[in-house]
């Protein structure tokens, strides 16, 4: 019998600072989380399946800057009971969305790249695309808010 919470950790466009905070939080929490979580998809911790698995909680950091990313995020939404947006880029889009605010000259410089690699017209935050259940703001994410949310679902 497996009563562990099935957890995923995903990164879109960002600097992955919250992934680092998460791996540093493991320093003091790994014994507890190892017992209570099953990391079913977490590229930072393990080779993860190509197909996104069913999850109790998906932690998602980063902003959405391409159609491929949007498709993957929607897939995560289908498979996860709870989505937690992690860090500023996921929650408000910044600073990964800085190109949204470029002036004409800056926009001109990056235009060819945007077209070549088929970027989205604008960079979006997660809630522009899917329903987000919880948010952990901060750049990097606020550790206390993160732990509060983790504990809320651990003790449910």
């Amino acid at each position, binding site marked *: 019998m497996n009563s562990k919470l099935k957890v995923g950790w995903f990164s879109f466009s960002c600097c992955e600072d919250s992934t680092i905070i998460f791996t540093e939080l493991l320093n003091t929490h790994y014994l507890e989380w190892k017992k209570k979580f099953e990391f079913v998809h977490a*590229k930072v911790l393990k080779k993860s399946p190509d197909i996104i698995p069913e999850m109790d909680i998906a932690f998602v950091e980063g902003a959405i800057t391409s159609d491929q990313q949007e498709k993957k995020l929607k897939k995560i939404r289908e498979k996860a009971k709870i989505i937690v947006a992690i860090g500023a880029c996921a929650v408000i889009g910044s600073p990964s969305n800085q190109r949204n605010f470029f002036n004409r000259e*800056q926009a001109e*410089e990056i235009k060819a790249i945007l077209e070549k690699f088929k970027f989205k017209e604008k960079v979006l935050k997660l809630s522009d695309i899917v329903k987000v259940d919880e948010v952990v703001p901060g750049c990097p994410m606020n550790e206390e808010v993160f732990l509060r949310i983790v504990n809320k679902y651990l003790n449910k």
Partner: protein
Amino acid sequence: MHDVNDSFDINLEEVSKVEGAASLEIKVRNRKIIDLKFYISEWKRFYTQALQGKPVVAAPQLVARICGTCSNAHLLCSIKTIENAFDIIPSNQTKVLRKLLYYGLIIRDHGLHLYIFSLPDLYGKNSILDFDENDPKEKELLEDTFSVKEVGNQLSIVVGGRSVHAPMPTIGGFLKLPDLSNLKNLLPKLKEIRPKILKLIKIFAEALFRLEAKTKLNFSGLISHDFSFLEGKLENSQGETMLHDELSSYLEEVIIPYSHARGFQLNGNLMMVGALARLNLAKENLNAKTKIAAAKYLGSFPSNNIFHNNLAQAIEMLHAVDASIDLINSLVSITDEKPQKIVPKKSVGVGTIEAPRGTLFHKYEIDEQGTITTAEIIVPTGQNHVLMEKVIFEQTEKLLLENAGKEKIIFEAERLVRAFDPCMSCASHFLKVKWR
């Protein structure tokens, strides 16, 4: 008839246990590689463009957001760039504290790579969290993983206010200085992790993974007398020493059309930067205690074995611990220094440091008001990009001759990529700069 084992496609969308997103595509027909592409698949966030028009004082905290894991490398490189532009010379205390902040980064960042990303490969596990708590040796390594990383994390927090995007270091000094007693309290913890790191060094020294590039490599790095990563001169294994540290004129750019990042070469040669390059070029500059404790393993350098990058990182972790202990012991007080004043002027600032993964370069053109008009950033993973693809090709070719199957080829390619400790978050955000 074609055997399915002789002709197949590999489409690895995201290499696992690396920092950021990298992809690998290999087409094999009749056991011959007909196409192989290794590329950075991170989507650009356009930091060099975003810097244009920003006040230069905003740059350090903005560029820290290029990369979560080595944020403090970008932060300190940016500060150095601006200080160079405005002729600000940091005080000795500031230099010591920056080194301590940096050694904390080396411990936790190399620790992340060696324990979380690479160690599972050596034990045939998928994840460090799969290490068996009922096996005394594996249990010990699991505990080491998190206790060693935590000391690096704490060192960065005590000095910089946070281990990621440290808020306290600033242009000309520190916004808030660390408490001396908090620093002294770290001494027993640093001493405690020393034997654990020695254990890690032994593990990676005994690892049998081996891959040498067929062509001669030019190892390159910023070499400092005390192996402090933050100052020094650019040197390479062809025996050149550069008088200035302007990386953009030292390297030759290589466009990799399918990658979100650009590559580089040096004097027409394949180049490599990072811990292996630093140890190959300057192992005699390591801390005296490190040199004694790791003497037996230092004999492996200079080395052309890419996997020795892991061993080199482990030795650098020991150096970071030993050098930190020396620096903290030497501190008798923290003087209440305010950050030096900035007087903006029209200038071009250049800053080069050794990031955990290799040489990092920032260059800002600044106007009279202190606004950035043009910026350029060159990161380590770009400098290793061409070599990475080349050695994956060579390894895959060899494996095909040995009749290896698809799964084995993927596994070995991922392990090889991991040995470089690439950072894709860093690599993908810069466009070629047109200097006006």
